[in-house]
């Protein structure tokens, strides 16, 4: 019985799928009824999508930047795609279409440039620092950084291919080189790692849920949403890493002019920089 009825059902499904696919591009060109059309006749009357691929750590700040940019550019819709920078660069290399790429390290920016997808005009627009976070009730009893090496803790880190994971390893190695922590500090800490996450926000989530005893994230990740769920242990300057975030207009951008406007806005002292600073990033301007 089910065999007989499943064929028409499946064909209908497939037809719907194709119909949807055919409609999708049309949706973006529907006139933006809500966009105000005041003086100039040159004012765009259709919605234009600007696709921005941004590191997961930029989630909150870039959402706000997008809102501001959209307010300044009627008819423009910023479509953000947030993930670990390494995931974004893989997506771009596999043919994903985007206008702007903002990476959390230079490695992934270079990967994209080496693939011929962007020229060398990438500019560092913000920097970030590492911080160790523990759940508010601190189940692992981690009160200073040296406690990270205590046996049987549950630490969560980003995978080393994720920018923040790479920075974390560098930080631990630097600490290990210091007599206060000792040469086997890095080994002891890594032994406590129970999960390697694919982006920094996943690390934040596991600590905020209280499942992990500690995690290494960016200062900017301790947002108002999680600040009452976690406690921060600052990392001293001599061990801390400076994460540099480059941004670039991609070569096959569908909206090159708009993309370059967006990058300028991110770099503007009274635009993106102010917003990034509000989210605990360190502005460059």
């Amino acid at each position, binding site marked *: 019985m089910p065999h007989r009825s499943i064929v028409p059902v499946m064909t209908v499904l497939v037809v719907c799928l194709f119909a949807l696919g055919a409609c999708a591009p049309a949706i973006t060109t529907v006139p933006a009824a809500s966009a105000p059309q005041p003086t100039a006749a040159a004012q765009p009357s259709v919605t234009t999508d600007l696709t921005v691929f941004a590191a997961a750590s930029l989630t909150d700040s870039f959402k706000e930047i997008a809102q501001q940019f959209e307010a300044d550019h009627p008819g423009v819709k910023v479509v953000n795609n947030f993930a670990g920078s390494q995931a974004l660069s893989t997506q771009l290399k596999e043919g994903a279409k985007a206008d702007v790429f903002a990476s959390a390290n230079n490695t992934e920016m270079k990967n994209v440039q080496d693939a011929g997808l962007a020229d060398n005009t990438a500019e560092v627009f913000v920097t970030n620092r590492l911080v160790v976070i523990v759940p508010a009730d601190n189940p692992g009893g981690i009160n200073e950084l040296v406690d990270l090496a205590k046996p049987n803790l549950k630490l969560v880190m980003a*995978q080393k291919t994720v920018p923040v994971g790479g920075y974390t390893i560098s930080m631990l190695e630097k600490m290990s080189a210091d007599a206060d922590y000792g040469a086997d500090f890095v080994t002891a800490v890594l032994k406590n790692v129970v999960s390697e996450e694919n982006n920094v926000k996943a690390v934040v989530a596991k600590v905020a849920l209280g499942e992990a005893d500690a995690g290494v994230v960016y200062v900017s990740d301790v947002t108002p949403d999680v600040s009452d769920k976690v406690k921060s242990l600052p990392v001293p300057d001599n061990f801390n890493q400076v994460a540099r975030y480059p941004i670039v207009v991609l070569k096959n951008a569908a909206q090159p002019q708009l993309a370059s406007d967006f990058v300028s806005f991110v770099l503007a002292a009274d635009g993106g920089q102010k917003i990034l600073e509000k989210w605990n990033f360190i502005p460059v301007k």
Partner: protein
Amino acid sequence: MSTSNLTLSQFSLRRLSGKRALLLAFSTLLILFLTLPLVALVLRALPLGIEAWTSRATLDALQLSLTTATIATLIAFGIGTPVAYVLARENFRAKPIVDTLIDVPMVLPPSVAGLALLMAFGRRGLLGPPLAALGLELPFTIAAVILAETFVAAPFYVRSAKAGFGAVDRKLEQMSELLGVSPFRTWLRVTLPLSAPALFGGLLMTWARALGEFGATIMFAGNFPGRTQTMPLAIYSGLESNLDSALVLSLLLVIVSFGILFVVRAISPKGITLG
């Protein structure tokens, strides 16, 4: 095609072939749509050298997946068999609810399953404190992987086993008992063998589903190579760091899935549908 069908009138012949053409066109489209991605995967994975197959990342994930999926399937068998038998044979008022509850994990998004498992068995979860008192912390352990796999996969076995038990001719059981054979021995000698194909098919489906578990595992058990990083998690991580290993593991999972569905189809008796 049906040129030999001369008894049909011109009109109905045309209508029939029109219908056939439509069916042919749509099924070609559907089959292409369903197989093209798999073919692309195979084409990309097949030329890879032996290193991709024998890399540490591949072997660790393979071993962990085979172990955990097998244990999850055994748990489903042990606990699911009596449940399926009762559901197939007894009638009680809460039965529709129990039936539905058991099926829920099959349609639940895996991320929901993962979050639910955390809320139940996580450190801050409902059973977190009592488990901790026993010295047990489940998240980030291999036990968490098995739990997640059992949660999402066991319903496949229960459904299939229930159908199998339901299809056994009761007269044969009654006859056996009339001949003085105890109910348990009757179950063992008559009911079980007769429903064996359905049970086995269900076990295979459960194993395959457990092998493919991703969302609940990454949320509840985390992602650590050699400990909780099963094949689907290794594929996800490998996409960014070790694409060759990800491709090889994907190819393995495609082959296993195809093989299992093929076997299940071959052994399942008529009238019993799986899944």
